[in-house]
């Protein structure tokens, strides 16, 4: 089956920044993304957990998007402006997709 190269960008960021990040992604031309809840974790800024959180202040979410390789720089520039000062992790990995026109 014919497959196409793509980039999978995963951004784990504070829940309060979710809408700011997704707005930036849309502005940079991303056609779709998925937001996943993060159950918990630990990092340089300490541990966090979803359990019992009534505030979004210490919760995290993960935003995943798959894009064509030529759009990666625009996406990272837009996303970096949002995540620069905040707790979080940005990773980029290679992947393949079946329907290139959707990305």
């Amino acid at each position, binding site marked *: 089956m014919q497959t196409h190269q793509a980039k999978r960008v995963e951004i784990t960021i*504070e829940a*309060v*920044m979710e809408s*700011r990040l997704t707005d930036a992604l849309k502005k940079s031309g991303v056609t779709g993304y998925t937001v996943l809840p993060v159950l918990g974790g630990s990092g340089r*800024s*300490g*541990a966090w*957990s*979803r*359990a*019992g*959180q*009534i*505030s*979004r*202040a*210490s919760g995290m979410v993960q935003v995943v998007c798959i894009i064509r390789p030529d759009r990666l720089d625009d996406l990272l520039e837009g996303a970096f402006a949002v995540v620069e*000062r*905040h*707790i979080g992790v940005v990773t980029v990995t290679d992947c393949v997709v079946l329907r290139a026109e959707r990305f």
Partner: protein
Amino acid sequence: MDQLLGLAAENLISPIILSFALGVAASLARSDLSIPEAVAKGMSIYLLFAIGFKGGVSVADHGIDGRLGLALLAGITLSFVLPLIAFALLRVMTRIDTLDAAAVAAHYGSISIVTFVAATSVLESQGLAAEGYMVAVAAAMEAPAILSALWLVARGGDGARKMEPNLLREIMLNGSIVLLVGSFFIGWATGKEGLADIAPFIVSPFQGVLCLFLLDMGLVAGRGLREGGRIMRPGVLAFGVIMPLIGSVCGLGFGMALGLSTGGVALMMVLSASASYIAVPAAMRVALPEANPSLYLTLSLGVTFPFNLTLGIPLYLALAQTVNGG
């Protein structure tokens, strides 16, 4: 003094305080007890709706007077001013930097709605009435403190901090404020008849839901103490207890000047003494992301909230009764 000790003892062995203590103990003992996020959110929605609705019914029942506007103004003023006092106190008592001090100060100008709910529950158990519009005062006190904190940071020269265009809207339309104010107006519009219709849902189960909610708060507070305990230096810890006392005295002054009832004065004291752990931490993560969240969350949720819940509320109530009568 005997009355104060009696009230404190009665408060300490109430189901809501013991539920909170259970949560803290379970968390410190590293039990796997946890309340799912969705359940915690559901309970907070229930409590906010119930307290807002009952406040509105009380206003519908007793009518509205000129003090409402003045009480709102007093609440907003306190929320603007208390962070300035907290900031000065932090700079004297601790070695934390300007940014962290401003972020912590914002929490102490804003309010803890759960402390407010617990205080209204204590007032009810004592048969003391309070002005229903204190719910609206609580809502009005949520946001101004954040502006004071941003001003403190800008003034301190720690990098210019502009308010993000969307942030103020997000704070003002924060879900808890919308629900509290919205249910207040529903209660006001429907009055006692409306309350009678839904009393089996929002009156009878209230104390039980509050117990479970405080169990969860205890778990979160215990987790915060476990994780953030190491940054709690003696000066910072002392601040977490002294600042609510200073805030309560400010609230007492404003409540007395407004001529509020004893219950109203006690609630004004509780609002001034409490520290936010819902609206302000979220706002601080957006506006001042470099400030240490462990510091302000542990202080407000792990130190000041338990202090107010166990000793503060009976103390403020006894002071209000001594000064205002009733």
